[in-house]
């Protein structure tokens, strides 16, 4: 619209208001490695659960051992929660105790059903299904928070974390249905559900309380898992070790290497962001 200029005239003000890489965070290698410890910690927890399943299916672990393990886990979980989240009200504890006893009783009553759930399905299908479900669970898991809303958590769980939780629960039910006795079924389901539902919450509280404790716990867990897997099967030990090295060392380096190609463009052509939340 300016007289005397061609329509395709381009002068110095062209692209003057463009802003590049405004929101990009410069990453530090050490911090990324420390953050990746939470991922390998969860990997080890899932590996331990699978170990317990394998030993139970081989009849290496007895029912009594499992029941004692369950009670120990509940006790230590509560202990850590009390230590870190500081919710000391007696009424709340009673409330939780009642809920837990309801849950356990219901599970005990339903265990005959789970016992015969997959009797007509062949073992190969069960192993294949369980493996894919566990992989799905690891893939979609929300590693930065907890699906069960922790006290003080910021966000609601989203679709993928719900799917991963469901996958893990179905996997534990499938494994449980392969066991010989009902008490074993009850014990293994209780154990798996405790770990899958509450382990993220416990680790989140632990991490919030003290980062050093979190690191110590992770390393102890990794060492424990690696020894147990070594005793079970050598090849799986190599795979697990490789995976841990990949997650903790290779991935942070790779992320920082490709970060320099990041090119984020902002300018007057962007759609405006509303500064208020839309409440329907």
């Amino acid at each position, binding site marked *: *619209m300016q007289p005397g200029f*061609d*329509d*395709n005239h*381009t002068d110095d003000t*062209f*692209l003057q208001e*463009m802003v590049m890489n405004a929101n990009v965070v410069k990453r530090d290698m050490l911090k990324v490695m420390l953050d990746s410890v939470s991922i390998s910690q969860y990997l080890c927890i899932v590996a331990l659960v699978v170990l317990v399943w394998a030993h139970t299916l081989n009849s290496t672990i007895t029912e009594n051992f499992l029941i004692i393990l369950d009670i120990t886990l509940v006790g230590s979980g509560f202990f850590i929660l009390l230590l870190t989240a500081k919710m000391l009200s007696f009424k709340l504890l009673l409330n939780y105790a009642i809920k837990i006893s309801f849950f356990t009783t219901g599970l005990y009553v339903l265990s005959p059903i789970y016992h015969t759930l997959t009797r007509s399905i062949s073992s190969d299908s069960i192993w294949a299904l369980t493996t894919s479900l566990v992989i799905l669970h690891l893939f979609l898991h929300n590693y930065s928070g907890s699906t069960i809303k922790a006290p003080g958590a910021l966000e609601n769980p989203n679709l993928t974390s719900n799917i991963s939780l469901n996958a893990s629960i179905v996997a534990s039910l499938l494994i449980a249905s392969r066991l010989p006795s009902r008490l074993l079924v009850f014990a293994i389901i209780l154990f798996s559900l405790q770990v899958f539902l509450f382990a993220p919450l416990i680790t989140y509280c632990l991490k919030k309380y003290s980062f050093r404790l979190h690191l110590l716990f992770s390393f102890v867990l990794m060492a424990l898992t690696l020894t147990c897997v070594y005793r079970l099967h050598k090849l799986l030990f190599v795979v697990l070790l490789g995976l841990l090295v990949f997650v903790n060392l290779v991935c942070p380096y790779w992320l920082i290497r490709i970060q320099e190609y990041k090119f*984020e*463009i902002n*300018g*007057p*052509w*962007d*759609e*405006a962001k*509303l*500064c*208020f939340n*839309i409440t*329907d």
Partner: protein
Amino acid sequence: MDIKEGKHSILMVSDFFYPNFGGVENHIYLLSQCLLKLGHKVVVMTHAYANRSGVRYMTNGLKVYYVPWKPFLMQNTLPTFYGTLPIIRTILIREKISLVHGHQAFSTLCHEALMHARTMGYKVIFTDHSLYGFSDIGSIHMNKVLQFTLADVTQAICVSHTSKENTVLRSGLPPEKVFVIPNAVDTTMFKPAPERLSMDPIVIVVISRLVYRKGADLLVEVIPEVCHLYPNVRFIIGGDGPKRVRLEEMREKHSLQDRVDMLGAVPHAKVRSVLNSGHIFLNSSLTEAFCIAILEAASCGLLTVSTRVGGVPEVLPDDMIVLAKPDPSDMVHAIKKAIRILPHIDPQEMHRRMKEMYSWHDVAKRTEIVYDRALRCSNQTLLERLPRYLTCGAWAGKLFCLVMIIDFILWRLLQLWQPDSEVEPVPDFKRTELKRG
């Protein structure tokens, strides 16, 4: 030969045309009409709408091909890469087209037509009507497709300088190839009311689709606040969409039934009468390449209040528009300022200024310059054009080259099967000027 020297035969291609109403549709129609008046030949190609399929003629002999492809998603035809090659080739040969002008990056028919036209050696022009982002998955794919089409376009047109920056960044075109020709408004249709409306009550008009993109949520925050501050202000809201429910709820919640009128969808012919019943036009869009609604409002003599987004600051001079950040408190502040300066506005004067600043004939003349420039570019063979596609990306470049080579082979096969000489050209009919008695 009935086409005079220096006059072109143009094929306009887009998925968006009459009987749909919208910015792109109106642009194509009005631009074609003005080009016809300048003596060029214009043919439009679009997809079939419901029963409307085949060849139709519109005002002044504008021929429209409604190609029998049904739209599959948001008014776009199904993108079969080579399926449109035969029909486009037939149209180009029959109508003796000299250049192809495609509209709107979102239109799949446009991209396919430009690709085939380039293969067959015609010059192509592309006009981009919208702004797009860079970071969400839809935009990333769209930008790649745009890069492909614009890798070998002859010239490009954008409707505002912001749109030019956006298109150049998305497609990697050299800026000298992009012309900025703003849209215009039909000032003979949008005239102010003969008598000035009284200042009590002050009426604020909103006409837009009620969707997130057009800032309907901002309206929900702004309207109650303004109604509270100024007891003599009324709102008229025309348009429909998913956010209408929220506006109705806002009306109920603040008991504004007598102060806010919701008209529902307003047909294009009635827009003028709705605009003439108001003093101020409010536009709250979150993104706009060039807002024609503001031009229509200014042509009817309304003072405009708008969000400062995209190409909106380039549209009107500072004394005809009050700009605000897309934030409710800032918009309320802008409406306050507009109400304050409203007595100094003269609608007839505004209309007269708009008539001088914006006209479709001016747009057509500037587009004609672009066409002349395009036709002066040299012809290039396939081998000379292929290196341009290689710059689109490491993998994408080679893929695009492959696509173009296959297109070329298919074209040659088509020429063997049905040679150019067998396609019957359309006879040109003379348009006789009506004698005015």
